[in-house]
């Protein structure tokens, strides 16, 4: 832990001394594999819906191969619940705020810089649909009009390609991993929604360095 904090501080210090900032925005699409609700036969699946995403980021190329970034992503991810031939959908969305470290595989100034990233933050998950006492598959879970915050860790890979001195194009795929929600998707007594869920989002962004 202490080493991690020291490394973080060093990267930031290095970034501050390089003063190579950049911002960017883009959009993409997320794929969220469903989680299994067990405890009731047959099983059911619940989770976030695949859907679009838009985001923005702000970062600094602090070192020759390292960068630090803060990301915001808005994900249109409704909720779903299904079992057998019955499925229920519920409107919702997520806002993910996280900070990442990037390890580039080409030095700063290169035209093309592949990278990997990792970090963490928070997912603010909201169910916005209309609840009903008649909701199907209510014996498995209730899709609820409420909000909950979930910690998120993420890992990504991508590539940054300079189009000009200041403009860059960026492609990346990031996996957001969170514990399963308990309020927005509330499992019924006797059922269990296990594990972490993954939200794999691919984005294309345009950045501007300054």
């Amino acid at each position, binding site marked *: 832990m202490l080493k991690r904090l020291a490394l973080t501080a060093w990267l930031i210090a290095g970034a501050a001394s390089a003063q190579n900032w950049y911002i960017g925005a883009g959009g993409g699409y997320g794929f969220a594999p469903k989680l299994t609700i067990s405890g009731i036969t047959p099983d059911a699946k619940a989770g976030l819906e695949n859907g679009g995403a838009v985001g923005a980021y702000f970062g600094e190329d602090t070192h020759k191969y390292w960068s630090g970034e803060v990301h915001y992503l808005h994900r249109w991810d409704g909720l779903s619940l299904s079992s057998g031939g019955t499925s229920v959908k519920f409107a919702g969305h997520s806002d993910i705020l996280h900070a990442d470290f990037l390890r580039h595989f080409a030095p700063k100034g290169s035209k093309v810089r592949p990278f990997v990233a990792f970090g963490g933050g928070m997912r603010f998950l909201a169910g916005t649909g209309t*609840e009903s006492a*008649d*909701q199907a598959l209510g014996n498995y879970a*209730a899709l*609820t009009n*409420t909000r909950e915050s979930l910690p998120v860790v993420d890992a990504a890979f991508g590539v940054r390609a300079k189009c000009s001195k200041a403009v860059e194009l960026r492609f990346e795929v990031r996996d957001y991993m969170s514990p399963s929600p308990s309020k927005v998707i509330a499992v019924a007594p006797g059922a269990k929604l296990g594990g972490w869920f993954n939200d794999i989002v691919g984005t294309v962004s345009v950045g501007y360095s300054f």
Partner: protein
Amino acid sequence: MSFVRLQVICASLAVLSIAVAGRAATFGTAVPVRGTVSDIALDEGRNRLYIANFAAGRIDVMDTADPKFGFGTPLLVSKPPSSVALSPGNHFLVVGEYDSFNSSVGATETGGLAIFNLDQGSRLEIKLANPVLSVAFGAGNLALVVTKGNFLLLDPFTGRYQILGVTSLGGAPLPVPVGVCAPNAFSFPANVIQAATGVSGDQQTILILSQLTPPSAGICPGDQKVSAFLQYQVGANHLEAFGWTSSPPLGPRVVSVNRDASRYVAGWVLSDWYGADLAEFPNLIPGSSMDYRKGGHAFDYSRNLIYADILATVNDAPVMHVMDADNLTVRKRVHLPQMMAGRSLFSSDMTKLYSVSDGGVMILPVATLDTLPQVVALQEDVVFQSDICTRSVISKTIDIVDPTGGNTDFALSVASDTAGIRFSQTSGTTPAKVRIDVDPTVFQIHSGTTTVMLNIASSHAVNIPFPVRLLINTRDLSQRGQIVNVPGKLVDILADPVRNRIYVLRQDKNLVLVFDTATWKQIAAPQLRTGNTPMSMAFTPDRHYLLVGNDHSQLVNVFDLTTLQPWAPSPDYPNSPFIRTDGAYPGSVAVGQGIGTPVVWAAIRDASAPPECGAGRMFFRANFPASFASAPASLGVYKNCLPSTYNGNPPAPMVSASPTGQSILFTMPDATVGLWDGTADEWVVTRQDVTADVKSLSGAYAALSDNLFITDNRLLDQSLYPIAQWQTPTDSATSGVGLGATDGLRTTTTLDTSTTTTPATLLTPATTTTTVLGTASGPGTIERIDLNPDSPYYLQTYHATSTIEAPHTAATLTTPMLGQVGQTISTFTRTLAVPADRNSIVLLTQSGLTILPPDFDAATKVPVVSSVTNLGNGSTAVTAAEQVLISGTGLAPDSAVAGTEPLPSTLGDSCVVVGGEALPLFWVSPTQIKAVLPADAGGVENLVVHTPGGVSSPYSLQVQPFAPAVLPVETGTQAGLSRVIRNKNGEPVNFTNPVHAKETISIYMTGLGPTIPAVPAGNLTPATPPSLLVTQPVVTLGGVNLNVTFAGLAPGEVGVYRVDVTVPWNIRGASQAPLVVTQGGASATTQVRVVNP
């Protein structure tokens, strides 16, 4: 203000209204004449009405064009004028003179004629030896003059006259001296003492009604006078006598003739061309004074109506009956300014009627009668149906209208001692919809139908409105049957053996009503019109024809049941589709199958008893399809005479044929019975069995088979020997009897009684007198008769079952006439019929018909109550105004759901009473009932269920002060969920629809106690003013107090409370949090999921 007190106030207002409306409007104008009017003649060419003023000895001349009907110079005559007639062309006025008052002792009466030449202004006097009784002109220029000694044909131009001979029927000239009381015995016309004439509309026929006195004593019983009819054919110059009546003499002394003389009214008899007595007013001699001047009539052949003012008593008010011209059915009654008193003449356009009246003459603008103010009620009957459990007021509306469309005043009233009825208005102007509110609790003591007459009066209407019959039925649920209201006086019923119809005889309208037994709707057209005062019906053996016997017509109507039309007329009498019974009124008819021919037997009321039958004959007979019936000289070995002790009141024995037609039973009130055997075509049995306890017979009668007969409560075998007798309480009467699918059926009625107590005195003890009344406001009884000869209970009755209302008896049918001119109610009644398909049993009852299922006595479970639970949580804790679930067996015959609010207290033939109060019912089933407890229930209460199966044993309830419980959702996909509703989406809270912070939820409950204002149990709660709980409940969620924003009865619901609460912003989320409502120390808890945010 109490219901009864308000009713008293209304009654007082009604009386006041009557006082104000006491002087009714009259129809027509009365013109006083100073003197005595004996006759009139209308001179339209000169706008004159010539009035023979007998006492003043002159002809008064009234100006018909003068709005004030002033008088001009009278025409003077030398002797009192008895009659006056105008010649065709208005040239001559012929006045008949009758001088009997100037005769000195020993001098004979004399007469004369005064002939006025109106063109020249001259007068010719002719002396006659005999007083002139009547003068009439037909189409010719000669006048027919009827004197006390002869008939003359007078030429007014020359003053010459000739004596007319009179032929009798058959062509033989009169007189024919014989020694019997018949016209032949009279020296015709020497014995004519009175006469009146009437001229047909086409002026081709002059009819004469003459009264003859016997030439010597002893020829006619009691030296009674005889009325004879003569007709003079103008074209043929032929005068003949064609009919007569012996007793009593006809009156009033008026003859009215239709256009072609095919029908006429002479005295009180409507006859046809052939002399058949089509209809008549009852023998209403104009008062004991024998004053034949009182009364009058006119034949309006343009409208097919007869206008008549015929007195029933000396003191009758002047009323003109507007009647049908075929059978004297009364259509309307109008007040007259004076009584008719003699001849009436129409204007040539038939718009005005000039009548001799009691004080002069009257001018009646009959063409405008239907345009004058009148008041009628559109409804004849109004039925209010309730039961032992009904507590709410029943409202019905009647329409009081003026058919002319005008605004005419009216006033309503009922008998002053009537309670439980109130009106939205007791006076007003037409058109008006008057709401009638009946409090059934006032009538529930009767468990049957109470009849209240609603009288209508008006000060400006010219008509006398018919009253409306209010029929209030308050049955016990164990009473069977369904009422089909049929207004009128229903005196007989027959089921068609081959068609799905029943026939009901409506006596006040002279109609046979035909009902389709599949729908119980009346077949409206064609109407089967009978003679006057029909009494009974019979089928021909082939079931092709229906016969109707009448008591004020000398005929038996015959109807073809295939076409529902009158019988195809006899070729001899093309316009007379009936069987004539000249000289007798065939009240009761039966048709048996004789030897090779159907035989019609009519039990009659003799118009005039022949010498050989002091009390009159018994029967007329006709071999169907003959159109004449006559009295056989004997009935087999028996005389065709009523017993000498029989006083003819009530009239006529009653006859009934067996289903095969091989037997006909007759039964009489004096217990005489007789049997006709069709195989022998003879009356083979007659006997009279009077015992110590049976001195007379009345009520039900029938020939159930050729071997079993019933009269009253006696069963008779094929020799009419009494083989069994049922017990009938003294205040009961047998009503009907018939054959069901397997057994016999009989009905009885318990009559109302009145008990008066005479207090004790020093010398006598207190006495209590019970009087049997002529009403039956309780239930009737129907029971089966075991007709299985092999059964040990053969001929016994069983399965006695109460009916929804009482079948008719002679007493209940004998009510004041309403618009009828004749009413005849036999002591024997036929009030039960079983249609051909045997799918029902039909009774003639107080409101019309009562329809029973064939299994009216099917066993039904006595209700048993096993539990009463709170609808909210299923516990036995209940409180006032709580919705409860009553469980048990036999709680209702079938399931039923209340359709409308306020909730009924009877549903599906089931009701529940707690503490004497009927509960509003949501739904019923054989095993459960959902109801609302009374708002004033408290402590220990007994709950009782009433069904057709009986009454349950009382179930003891402990009614708590408070017993809150959250109601469940009862229907739909969310049924079973607690009725805690999120206002955001209107859905009940559950796992997928949790309570959220900061939102409002509504909790629907029961058992929260009294509210202000209170809402009657079973009624919808109104939105305004809100009914709020007297005691506020406390509501917590997860232990946190919630803010109660509303606590009271839920508007738009019945007996449901609603508590609205707001969830605070900081409520803790939970998958299950207790929502607790506490009221008066009792609480209700339901678990809900809470989410925040």
